[in-house]
C-alpha cells in the first residue's frame, strides 16, 4: 500500500495541518509520499523531505499551482491518485475545496473529516455536528480522505531524508483565477494548533469590547476564537469562528467567554482538554460541558482574571 498526502502550504512554509494528515497516514500503514504543488515552492518541498517517515516528495512547481486553485490542482491529484491506495488531505478550507473535486474525477466517494482509522478501509467520522460518530467502510479502490487534525498527532517535522521527484503540472484550466487574499495579521499562535484558546461570543457586545478577550489571550500566550454570533456581528474576522462549520480546535485550555454553548459551537471545541466557561446565565448550556464554570458579568471577571494570571 502507498499513501499520498497532499501538503498544505503557502509556497514558503508547510502548514501544521499537513503534519497531522501524515500522522493519520501512519495509522493506515504504508509508504508515505507527499505532494507539494505550488509556485516557487522548492523551500516547501525541502521541508517536506525532512518530515519523519516520508518516503518520497513529489514536487509540482508551476505558476498556475501557486494559489491552490481546485480547477488546476484536482486533475493533478486525480492523475497521481491512480497509483495509490489512499490520498489524504487536511480537513481545512484548502483540503475541503480541492479533494472532493479530485474524488469526483476518480469516481470515488470521499470520506470527509475522519477522526480515527480503524483499518485501511474503515474510518470513524463525526456527523450531525458531532452528536453522532459514524464508522464507515469504503468499497472504493482508492480512498480519498480528509483528516480532522485535532484527532491525530502531528509527526515530527525533522528526522527524514526523502528523495524529491519533479513532476509536471496539468496546466492552467483557465476556469478561475486568484485575485487576492485579505489576511488579518497577528502574532498570536495559529488557532487550530494553539495550546490555549480564548473565545468570545455575542456577550461581548461590540468590536471594541472584544479587546478584553485579546488582553486575556495575550497574557496566556493563547489564540483567539469566536462564536458564529460574534463573527456575524463583525466583532472579529471570519477565520476565528469555532464550530461545526468553522474551525475545530482541541487545545489543553479553552476559555469560552459570553458564549451560550449551542451544539454548533460545541462541535468545534468539546474535545478540548480543559474547558472554562464565563457567562452571566447560570443555565447556559456551555456550563454542562465546562470543567470550571464561573457565573457572572464577563466585564468584571475577564479583566480581574487577566490581572491575576
Amino acid at each position, binding site marked *: 500500500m502507498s499513501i499520498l498526502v497532499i501538503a498544505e502550504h503557502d509556497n514558503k512554509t508547510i502548514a501544521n495541518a499537513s503534519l497531522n494528515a501524515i500522522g493519520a497516514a501512519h495509522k493506515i500503514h504504508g509508504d508515505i509520499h507527499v505532494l507539494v504543488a505550488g509556485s516557487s515552492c522548492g523551500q516547501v518541498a525541502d521541508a517536506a523531505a525532512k518530515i519523519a517517515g516520508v518516503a518520497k516528495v513529489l514536487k509540482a512547481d508551476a505558476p498556475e499551482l501557486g494559489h491552490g486553485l481546485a480547477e488546476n490542482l484536482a486533475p493533478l491529484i486525480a492523475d497521481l491518485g491512480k497509483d495509490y491506495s489512499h490520498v489524504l488531505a487536511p480537513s481545512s478550507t484548502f483540503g475541503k475545496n480541492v479533494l472532493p473535486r479530485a474524488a469526483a474525477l476518480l469516481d470515488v466517494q470521499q470520506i470527509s473529516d475522519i477522526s480515527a482509522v480503524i483499518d485501511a478501509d474503515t474510518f470513524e467520522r463525526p*456527523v450531525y455536528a458531532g452528536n453522532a460518530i459514524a464508522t*464507515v467502510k*469504503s468499497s472504493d479502490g482508492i480512498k480519498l480522505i480528509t483528516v480532522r487534525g485535532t484527532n491525530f498527532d502531528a509527526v515530527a517535522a525533522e528526522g527524514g531524508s526523502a528523495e524529491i521527484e519533479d513532476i509536471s503540472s496539468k496546466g492552467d484550466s*483557465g476556469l478561475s483565477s*486568484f485575485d487576492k487574499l485579505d489576511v488579518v495579521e497577528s502574532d498570536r499562535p495559529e488557532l487550530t494548533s494553539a495550546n490555549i484558546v480564548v473565545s468570545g461570543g455575542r456577550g461581548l457586545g461590540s468590536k471594541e469590547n472584544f479587546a478584553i478577550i485579546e488582553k486575556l489571550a495575550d497574557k496566556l500566550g493563547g489564540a483567539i476564537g469566536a462564536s458564529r454570533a460574534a463573527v456575524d456581528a463583525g466583532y472579529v474576522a*471570519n477565520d476565528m469562528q469555532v464550530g461545526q462549520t468553522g474551525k475545530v480546535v482541541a487545545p489543553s485550555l479553552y476559555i469560552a467567554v459570553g458564549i451560550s454553548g449551542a451544539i454548533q459551537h460545541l462541535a468545534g471545541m468539546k474535545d478540548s482538554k*480543559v474547558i472554562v466557561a464565563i457567562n452571566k446565565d447560570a443555565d447556559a448550556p456551555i456550563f454542562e460541558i465546562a470543567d*470550571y*464554570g464561573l457565573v457572572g458579568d464577563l466585564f468584571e471577571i475577564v479583566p480581574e482574571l487577566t490581572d491575576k494570571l
Partner: protein
Amino acid sequence: MKILVPIKRVVDYNVKVRVKADQSGVELANVKMSVNPFDEIAVEEAVRLKEAGKASEIVVVTIGPEKAQEQIRTAMAIGADRGILVKTDAPIDLGGVEPLAVAKTLKALVEKEKPDLVIMGKQSIDDDSNQTGQMLSALLGWSQGTFASKVEIDGDAVKVTREVDGGLETLSLKAPAIITTDLRLNEPRFAKLPDIMKAKKKELEVVEPAALGVDYTPRLSIVKVVEPPKRVGGGKVSSVDELVDKLKNEAKVI
C-alpha cells in the same frame, strides 16, 4: 441567466439528535425537518440576483423522499420559480444517497435544464460532508467558488469572496460556475403568508432517479453509528481566585 439551486431536507438545526439503539443511524421519526440552512442561503442569493435583474429563472431541486416537497415549497415561498423532486426512498443522511450520487444526479439535471449558475450549500448539517458542490463542478468541468461570503456577477465574469482559514480570498470565475454558500453570504428572509400561498401553485415536477440514469448504491457502508463519549462537566467555581488556583494546581494547564 438561469440559476439552479439544489436544496436538501435535513433535521432542523435546533433538534438535538439521538442515535438509534441498534446503532444503524440517527432517529428521524417524528423529528422536525427543514431546508438545510446553507441551502436556504443559496435560495435567498438566487432570489436577490433575480430581484436585481441579473437572473431570469430559479429552479430548485432536491433528491429525497416524497415529503421533501415541503422543502421545495419553502424555497418557492422565498422566491424560487419551479421545483424538481428526484424521488427516492433511500436514506439521504447516512448509508444511502451519497454526495457523489447527488452530484451525478445534479449533473444530469444541469444537462437538461442548462442553467448558467448553480448556487448550493457548502455543507449539509446532517452528513457534514462538504463535497457535493466541488464534485458537481468536477463532473461538469465548471469553475467553483466554494464557501462564498460575497458573489458579484458581471456578464459571464463571476467574482467570489471566499471564507478561508487564512481570511478572505477573492477569485474570478468564468461562468458557468458552481457557488457554494457560507453563513455570511446573506440572511434569508422570512416568507410572508401570501408568498406561501403563491408557492403552493408553482410547478413541481417529480422524477425517478432511473430516468436520469443514476445509481444510488452506496460506496460507504455504515458499520455503526454511536454517541460520542460523554463529557462530564458541570463543575462551578465561585471566584476568579478559585479559578486561577484550580487552573494552576488542579488542571495544571497554566
